[in-house]
């Protein structure tokens, strides 16, 4: 009985259909598969009802520890999600549709993506956005490939303060292409500007920086933008969208291509995905953008409508000469991002950014008050900062996990010589009470 999940036919209907086709059994339809190639085993579980299935999933979720207090970020952030995000993105007219190939019956998705692109342009201060990419890491890689195409050069310079995950993804993407990657080691949690100046010449396609960076430091890259443009290269900036409620926008800085991870915009942590990546650029680079782009136009009666546009860039037309191999986007996650941004709104995003910084500054001051603990960077920070502990951060983090606190990301495994450094994240969700508890527990852990 359980075998029939979501397959509606009765035996009578199956018989009727087989007679129309002119075969005696369903098995006859598989005759094109040579007998010698047929599967001899299929060792899978026996199946169950949706109720038992959900029970099993509850049991799996129960095997993770519950209610961890997160002071970890590193690209994914524990932010509030307004109720409307789940409810509206949960409309199955959105989530059971597909890529809007037929615009007349997909105006809902298309207009939403146009509004999403608008939100990303306004947030980043740039002219054009695509309809989203997979995640922040792959967005960095796509931006680098875009810069290689635009400049016709083959060198990418990476600020070592960019997320190590994003740098690793970028290196994986570019490994098989004829591209030289130069990495600039961080200096006390900041870009080594002299080191960068030493490698910046007219062979460089792009420089990739992150703001705030992996250590949490905020930097002003305006001067850097001029230097990069001076050698005919592009500046790619990976940004944190919540921080853009406060920080100078990529457009104002002079960044040519802005990328980032959209998880913090209304997408749950969900053990790392799905989220979405965003990419925005100045208008002259639009034909080199990867992925889907929605454009405004009119119908036969002059009525406004939306379509997928500039498709001649894409793989289904250009095949191996396409600007990217990407086919889908992360439509539903981008929709969640749009609903989030529209719910929080213009003034609300600024408030949210301020709330994040207020909480983080409070935590930073309290934590730095613990004997032997100091803050790594002299630079200002947003909602992440790096502590230098009097002992190895690994041991402290492991000890605090037992107390239900994810204390931060130890830097030792990403930066040699940083074994005592810990990147702490404090979002608006952390209460003063939780921060105070963290301070007490950290102090206790350091005493042991």
């Amino acid at each position, binding site marked *: 009985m359980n*075998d029939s999940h979501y397959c509606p036919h009765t035996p009578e209907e199956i018989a*009727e*259909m087989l007679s129309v*086709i002119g075969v005696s059994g369903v098995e006859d339809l598989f005759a*094109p598969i*040579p007998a010698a*190639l047929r599967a001899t085993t*299929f060792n*899978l*579980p026996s199946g169950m009802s949706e109720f038992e*299935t959900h029970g099993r999933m*509850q049991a*799996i*979720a129960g095997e993770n*520890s519950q209610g961890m207090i997160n002071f970890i970020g590193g690209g994914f952030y524990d932010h509030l999600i307004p109720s409307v995000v789940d409810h509206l993105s949960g409309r199955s*007219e*959105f*989530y*059971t549709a597909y890529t809007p190939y037929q615009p*007349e*019956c997909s105006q*809902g998705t298309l207009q939403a993506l146009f*509004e999403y692109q*608008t*939100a990303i342009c*306004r947030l980043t201060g740039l002219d054009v956005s695509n309809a989203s990419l*997979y995640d*922040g*890491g792959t967005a960095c890689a796509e931006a680098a*490939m875009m810069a290689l195409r635009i400049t016709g050069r083959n060198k990418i310079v990476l600020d070592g303060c960019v997320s190590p995950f994003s740098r690793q993804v970028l290196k994986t993407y570019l490994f*098989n*292409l*004829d591209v030289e990657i130069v990495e600039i080691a961080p200096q006390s949690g900041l870009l080594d500007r002299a080191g960068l100046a030493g490698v910046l010449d007219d062979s460089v396609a792009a420089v990739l920086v992150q703001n705030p960076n992996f250590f949490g430091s*905020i930097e002003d890259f305006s001067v850097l933008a001029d230097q990069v443009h001076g050698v005919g290269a592009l500046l790619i900036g990976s940004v944190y969208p919540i921080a853009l*409620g*406060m920080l100078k926008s990529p457009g104002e800085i002079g960044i040519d291509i802005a990328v980032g991870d959209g998880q913090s915009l209304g997408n749950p942590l*969900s*053990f790392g*995905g*799905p989220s979405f990546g965003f990419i925005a650029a100045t208008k002259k680079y639009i034909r080199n953008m990867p992925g889907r782009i929605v*454009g*405004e*136009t*009119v119908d036969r009666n002059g009525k406004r*409508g939306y379509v997928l*546009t*500039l498709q001649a860039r894409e793989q289904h037309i250009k095949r*191996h000469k396409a600007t990217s191999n*990407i086919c889908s986007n992360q439509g539903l996650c981008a929709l969640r991002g749009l609903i989030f941004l*529209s719910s*929080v*709104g213009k003034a*609300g*995003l600024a*408030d949210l950014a301020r709330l994040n910084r*207020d909480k983080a500054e409070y935590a930073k001051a309290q934590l730095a008050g613990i004997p032997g603990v100091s803050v790594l960077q002299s630079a*200002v920070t947003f909602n992440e900062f790096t502590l230098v502990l009097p002992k190895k951060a690994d041991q402290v983090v492991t000890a605090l*996990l037992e107390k239900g606190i994810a204390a931060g990301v*130890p830097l030792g495994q990403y930066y040699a010589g940083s074994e005592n450094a810990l990147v702490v994240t404090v979002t608006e969700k952390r209460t003063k009470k939780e*921060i105070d508890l963290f301070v007490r527990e950290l102090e206790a852990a350091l005493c042991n």
Partner: protein
Amino acid sequence: MQLIYEQSVPGRRGVKLPASDVPAAPALPTPLLRKEAAGLAEVSELDLVRHFTNLSRRNFSVDTNFYPLGSCTMKYNAKVLENSAALFATFHPMTALLPGGVDFCQGTLGMLHDLGLLLAEITGMDEVTTQPLAGAHGEMTGIMLIAAYHAAKGNRAKKKYVVVPDSSHGTNPASAAIAGYEIITVPTAPYGDMDLELFKKAMTDEVAAVMMTCPNTLGLFNPHIKEISDIAHSHDALMYYDGANLNAIMGKVKPGDVGFDVIHVNLHKTFGTPHGGGGPGSGPVGVKKALIPFLPQPRIVKDAAGILQLETTNPGTIGRTANFFGNFGVMAKAYAYIIMLGGKGLIRVSEQAVLNANYIKERLKPYYDLPYDMTCMHECVFSASKQLAHGVHAIDIAKFLIDRGYHPPTVYFPMIVKEAIMIEPTETESKATMDAFIEVMIEAAKTAESNPQALLDAPLTMPISRLDETKAAREQNVCCAW
């Protein structure tokens, strides 16, 4: 409909944020701050809800309309899967990467590991990485694994080419190009599969991989697949299986048994997770033993004590292909789908998907040209060539279907069929739904003869008529001016 920005009123607020319980931090230096707030919408919550609810009503979707979009497997998405995925919403991926953190993530890591085992059994592979975020991302990962395999044997420079049939998805050559390969395209023979003689000629020791979709994009299973993989292997080329059409063959044939070395699986197609208006998808990649040393990291492994661990020290790895462990939320749905349907359920899925496609093919054959007239798998590809004689193109038939409440099939793909109409009903559609669709398709064919203008004018019942795509591409208006 107005844009959300056109409904904005300066000063109007949406969701209320919590009050701060800490002192206000001093302001940042002005040069670091943005000059003005980002021009996001300023709307009330009710206006927001009405806006997006009304937008949603301007979509066709599986839950509202039959959606036989060929190559996309638009099956019903069981509601319980949404509930199950939501159970994992609060788990931070970074927890698992902390020292000692895996102990706190045994449920989620275990599920990913189990999903890998299930997919390995379904596809006949030895190990699966769940990191790739979509089908094309899986293809890219898979070809990079193949590149690493050849490099480890000292053959990276020698192996320059990837062979694809001309019926392949555009993502195949595009993914191979990112992995640094040049493409050799082999034409399709009149019997509907890659031309075997031309394939043999194309194969040299310089070929790194052959990418196949099987059944192919014509919905046909290539009976020579074993021979093709034997030829490829004789040149030390590896076989890549594009899993887009896996819905046709579960339990019937395993790609790993017929010579494939690498496969990606589109969880959003075969394993019942929703397509989300274009994503999120998920594209786990399965490999044979010889390729395990190159898998992306962190790799989820079970230690001798049965504890899930993250392996990050493998020197052969191609590296990281995504920031964390892949689209976990999508994988939770696919995992729930597989354990719910079980082996027999999955076999039935493939059987009824194939039954439905053949039923539609037989019933529409008298009315539409069927360039490759043979038993199909999960989808069938017609041509609107008969209708073209009356000035009606595939796109016009598609628009007529929209007026009748059907999402059109895929049109103009595969490119090798002129005026292609590619129909994939999936297993979840009832006979009654398909019969009603068939009648409308027949009506379209008859209208093409009697009143072609009616098809050229369609659709008339939607909020908009056909759009000027040239204007969109010329003006490049991709964001609402501010």
